[in-house]
């Protein structure tokens, strides 16, 4: 029997049962044995002093890219899950746009085996919605769900064909798993590489209008109504999208959605000027930072305000990272040539915590969005709930610690962070997965 771990006197915040107070937590093997205001320590216990820290359920990321199999130079299950643990995550859902894509049971099973042997935390696979993610014919969804797929997505690309989307949502209704869509009408986004705005006009970069996302969100709402299938909108980025989703939720549509840390905290003006409060509108050597190139693109401050409002009023269900690690060759090039994506799983909580400091969202809301929010979409009461008898998936955070983002120190292979050099307040100090201290 392994050593018991005692987490002493941390501020336990467990949104599932609305706990917020100072507690001791005792872990045995992979489970939480006891939670109590005081637990008598024993010399055989491993003691974690959590005074001045918050203790929360291990975070769940419904959307990340681990790149394995196929692009191991960008990330592997081993490095991606260690990076996730450094960010406080104990469960990640891996997007299937790998090489080959996760579009059949044998490939999904090989990923599951790989995750078991090399993953530092729990990896739940998302399967491709269509064969090779080409959008032409559905994958074998019954079989994939039985093999462990928690949802379906052609992420990276939208499920373009409305007929195929309708059928995917029919299967979703029957299988009770979400279809996660990357909403983007390619005819509107064209060759766009950033948000369409005065910033793109000034930089001379082709823009992606908000309507490219919103028109497909709108379509998916209608198809969800038609079929009863669960549509989960990935990485919403615009004011218009959240308005559509808010209205759909009022009408009882089976819809959920997520927002990323970068869409909540950054705007497109960072591509012009690192200091977004600057008023001189001068293009400099810091402009055209390819690390800020992401799809959907960083939008305007009014979009950011709408996203924060939507997170607060429940229109947005969860925060998911869309962690998209890339190698240097994908980013050391002109803005047009650079790959889309931000490596952010290690900075996710800390970057959004700034919104808590600014009183724009509550700490509870932030934790909910990373724990019971995604657990609910996964249909699980085990994950995201720090309670007696559950898996000991626990994250300990020092809310006062200040640190400077240095991508060179990331555990992720992806160093592509646009907040390189920023000072963040709050840091994950320990991540425990199934009773094992990972970080």
């Amino acid at each position, binding site marked *: 029997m392994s050593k018991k771990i005692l987490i002493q006197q941390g501020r336990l915040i467990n949104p599932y049962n609305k706990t917020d107070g100072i507690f001791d937590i005792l872990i045995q093997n992979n489970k939480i044995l006891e939670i109590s205001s005081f637990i008598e320590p024993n010399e055989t216990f491993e003691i974690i002093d959590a005074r001045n820290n918050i203790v929360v359920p291990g975070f769940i990321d419904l959307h990340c890219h681990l790149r394995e199999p196929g692009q191991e130079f960008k990330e592997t299950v081993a490095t991606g899950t260690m990076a996730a643990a450094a960010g406080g995550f104990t469960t990640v859902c891996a997007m299937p746009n790998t090489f080959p894509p996760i579009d059949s049971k044998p490939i999904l099973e090989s990923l599951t085996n790989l995750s078991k042997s090399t993953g530092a935390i729990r990896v739940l696979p998302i399967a491709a919605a269509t064969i090779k993610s080409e959008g032409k014919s559905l994958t074998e969804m019954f079989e994939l769900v039985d093999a462990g797929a928690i949802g379906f997505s052609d992420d990276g690309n939208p499920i373009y064909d409305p007929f195929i989307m309708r059928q995917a949502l029919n299967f979703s209704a029957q299988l009770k798993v979400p279809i996660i869509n990357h909403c983007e009408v390619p005819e509107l986004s064209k060759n766009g590489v950033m948000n369409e705005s005065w910033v793109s006009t000034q930089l001379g970069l082709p823009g992606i209008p908000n309507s490219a996302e919103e028109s497909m969100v709108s379509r998916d709402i209608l198809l969800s109504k038609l079929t009863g299938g669960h549509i989960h909108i990935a990485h919403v980025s615009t004011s218009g999208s959240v308005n559509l989703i808010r209205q759909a939720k009022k009408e009882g549509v089976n819809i959920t959605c997520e927002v990323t840390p970068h869409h909540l905290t950054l705007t497109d003006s960072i591509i012009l000027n690192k200091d977004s409060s600057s*008023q001189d509108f001068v*293009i400099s050597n810091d402009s055209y930072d390819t690390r800020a190139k992401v799809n959907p693109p960083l939008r305007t401050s009014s979009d950011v305000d709408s996203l924060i409002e939507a997170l607060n009023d429940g229109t947005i269900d969860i925060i998911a990272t869309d962690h998209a690690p890339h190698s240097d*060759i994908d980013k050391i090039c*002109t803005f047009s*040539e650079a790959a889309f994506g931000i490596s952010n799983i290690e900075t996710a909580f800390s970057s959004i915590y700034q919104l808590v400091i600014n009183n724009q969202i509550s700490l509870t809301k932030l934790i909910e969005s990373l724990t019971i929010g995604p657990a609910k979409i996964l249909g699980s009461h085990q994950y995201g709930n720090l309670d007696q008898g559950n898996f000991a998936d626990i994250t300990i955070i020092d809310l006062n610690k200040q640190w400077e983002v240095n991508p060179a120190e990331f555990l992720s292979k992806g160093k592509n962070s646009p907040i390189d050099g920023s000072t963040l307040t709050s840091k994950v100090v320990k991540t425990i997965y199934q009773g094992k201290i990972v970080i």
Partner: protein
Amino acid sequence: MIKSSNHILDLDLMTAPQIEQIFNDADEMTDILNSDYKKTEALKGKTVITLFFEPSTRTRSSFEQAGKILGADVINIVNSTSSSKKGESLYNTALTIQSIKADVIILRHPHSGAPYFLSKLLHKSTIINAGDGMHAHPTQALLDMYVMKKHIGTLKNKKIVFVGDISHSRVVRSNICGLSKFGAKIVICGPQSLIPTDFLSAENLPQNHPFKNISFEPKLHKAIDQADVIMPLRLQRERQDSGLLPSLREYASYFGVSLHKLQNAKPNAIIMHPGPVNEGVEIDHDVVHGPNSVIQEQVESGVAIRMAILKSVTQNEVSKIE
């Protein structure tokens, strides 16, 4: 040693007095150009490399001529690039060029921001932007403004009209940047499918934004009314093919600049064009070759302006030679 901060990437970092200085220098350069012996030693011992990833006749040859007259050794590199080619090769090409001791690299590239990308990575060569994607073409804007000033005097409150494909035009962006520093009234005109959305209501742009003072005029005859300068832009055939326009024929009849449509412009208004010209599309043959056209003068001034710029970026060294 040339300071890397001497890069000329766009006009936004230049002040009006600095631009005036270039114009004064260009006057001197014009004298050299018009003399019998077109050679100086100002850039003797310097290597200037033109690195072009897009086809160009006038810009490249005018830089080459400018460099040679100033006594620099000029090497021309023409690199055809396909969109699939990785930018890493741009990086490596530039490193190679720096390593062969280029003092000045004159870069044209189809991707906006390419010269900024290089200026971050190269510390020994000065970069002059000869056109990057849809972003900027500062030497063209300088020569345009130089020619404007020659003909209409001060630019303050003068009505400068750009007609046509504003969205894809780096020439317009750099001109707006420069002209707004001199208080010109900038009017843009063209089919809305070729105008950036934010230009339709520029008053909504943030305070102090360099594009804030432009105005959009949907009708050509109104745009031209009392104009001092009219610059139609090259309309590329692919705009029709990509669905932005129904036909070049319709475009020509509504937005093509003809003698007839110029009636309401100021009598001494000048007609400019950054070239190459599509006669019969954005501008009629008799306008190109008419009395108000200064299109050939633009080309001539291009050499003088580029000489002035080459001199300014190598200034420290020049003063040492003297």
